[in-house]
């Protein structure tokens, strides 16, 4: 770790992570806290029972502007993603993905319509490629700008709304997948009611210079603790949410991944995004494989890469994310299975260290979503 630490980028909260005893690990080119002294299990439970504060400043924050009201940028972005971006009202957000010509996923992202353009949040590991992809795809139609200095905090959990309302009462009434501009601790922020844990909560884009003061203010609230990447992963896995590069990638289509809810009706019919023919055909005929939840029997976790077999020993799929679900109290996993085996309760076998571990296909999410739908 120490020999590469010098090459790693730091978020605006780096000093705070060290002060809090965060165990820093390399992640997508950044030094990030995988956990704090409380540990992943306690941090996970903290988020499910009260509130957790996550530093997600490594993610890419991209603004698209067209010099007008954003409708030209919205129309142009539709050439790269299958979401109905033009139908997105100002202040509303949608989950989407950049697709390739084979219908595979280049990255997943959040798109928010602003009164003067679009605001995107993309994955840290993909952000340089995404920026180039956007600049090439939107050339002459919209200006693409990535803010490398801004902070991004996520406040997640059943107490998140009560906590953030103390700083700005207007956030209490926000619905899931909306965004407003709010001044928090004197800094102009973009607050979204969204997250990656399955819990109610917010994602807060904050100027880099103000990020630490805001984080300290939130951590001073009795319900809030700092949460690392380890618990972020176990929380999103229990919530059945995809991790790019694992559960979805350039070789998986949105239909296979069970993300067709993010392709709105007009786009399904009209196409006009990369890989539309493949995706439309899979929508009509059904995909050959599907992303599923898996519940291993017993206590042994089944992790990414484990092969899945049917009763005859034929390889029928592969695990893409797996671990122990602290709220479930048992191991949980996600993976791809041949479509005929994707129904809940289907029995399959995972190969772990040469041993056959029985698993059952399970409905996702493992832990119920508790979004504030307003």
């Amino acid at each position: 770790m120490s020999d590469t630490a010098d090459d790693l980028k730091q978020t605006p909260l780096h000093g705070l992570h060290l002060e809090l005893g965060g165990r820093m690990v390399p992640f997508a080119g950044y030094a990030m806290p995988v956990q704090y002294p409380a540990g992943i299990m306690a941090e996970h439970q903290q988020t499910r029972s009260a509130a957790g504060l996550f530093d997600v400043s490594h993610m890419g924050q991209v603004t698209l502007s067209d010099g007008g009201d954003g409708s030209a940028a919205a129309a142009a972005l539709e050439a790269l993603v299958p979401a109905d971006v033009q139908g997105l009202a100002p202040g509303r957000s949608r989950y989407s993905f950049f697709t390739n010509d084979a219908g595979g996923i280049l990255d997943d992202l959040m798109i928010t319509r602003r009164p003067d353009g679009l605001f995107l949040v993309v994955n840290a590991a993909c952000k340089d490629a995404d920026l180039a992809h956007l600049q090439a795809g939107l050339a002459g139609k919209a200006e693409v700008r990535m803010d490398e200095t801004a902070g991004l905090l996520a406040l997640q959990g059943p107490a998140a709304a009560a906590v953030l309302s103390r700083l700005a009462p207007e956030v209490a009434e926000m619905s899931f997948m909306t965004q407003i501009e709010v001044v928090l601790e004197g800094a102009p922020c973009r607050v979204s009611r969204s997250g990656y844990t399955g819990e109610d909560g917010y994602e807060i884009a904050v100027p880099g210079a103000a990020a630490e003061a805001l984080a300290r203010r939130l951590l001073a609230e009795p319900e809030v603790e700092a949460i690392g990447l380890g618990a972020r992963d176990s929380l999103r896995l229990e919530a059945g949410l995809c991790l790019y590069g694992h559960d979805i990638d350039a070789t998986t289509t949105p239909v296979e991944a069970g993300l067709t809810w993010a392709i709105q009706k007009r786009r399904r019919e009209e196409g006009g995004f990369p890989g539309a023919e493949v995706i439309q055909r899979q929508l009509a005929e059904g995909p050959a494989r599907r992303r599923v939840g898996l519940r291993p029997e017993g206590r042994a976790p089944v992790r990414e890469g484990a092969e899945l077999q049917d009763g005859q020993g034929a390889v029928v799929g592969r695990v893409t994310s797996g671990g122990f679900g602290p709220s479930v109290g048992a191991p949980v996993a996600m993976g791809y299975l041949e479509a005929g085996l994707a129904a809940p309760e289907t029995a399959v076998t995972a190969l772990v260290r040469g041993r056959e571990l029985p698993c059952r296909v399970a409905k996702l999410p493992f832990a119920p979503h508790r979004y504030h739908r307003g």
Partner: protein
Amino acid sequence: MSKLHFTDDHEWIRLEGDVATVGITDYAQEQLGDVVFVELPEAGTALEKGKEAATVESVKAASEIYAPLDGEVTEANAALADDPAKVNSDPQGEGWFFKMTLADSSQLDSLMDEAAYKAFVETL
């Protein structure tokens, strides 16, 4: 009090008579984080020094535990099946992994004593 031996893979070995009890150190459990599952070798398993002997799973990852010495497993800690968190709460006591006989007790000479292990951990 029987003497403790340590490996640079962060295992401890306590020799009582002919039988060595093996577990992982406090430093190791701290590094692993919350342990959720331990896969242990069955009694009768022949162990070869430096080869895989057990697997410990934390929330985040699986880690291999290597045999500290040549020998044969006489008993695995059955209590870890129901309560793997004992590895975190009492790594050098109730969180032991397995007991083994030694094929060659002179192999113990290559291990560290407690003072040497402490000094080793401080260099990490």
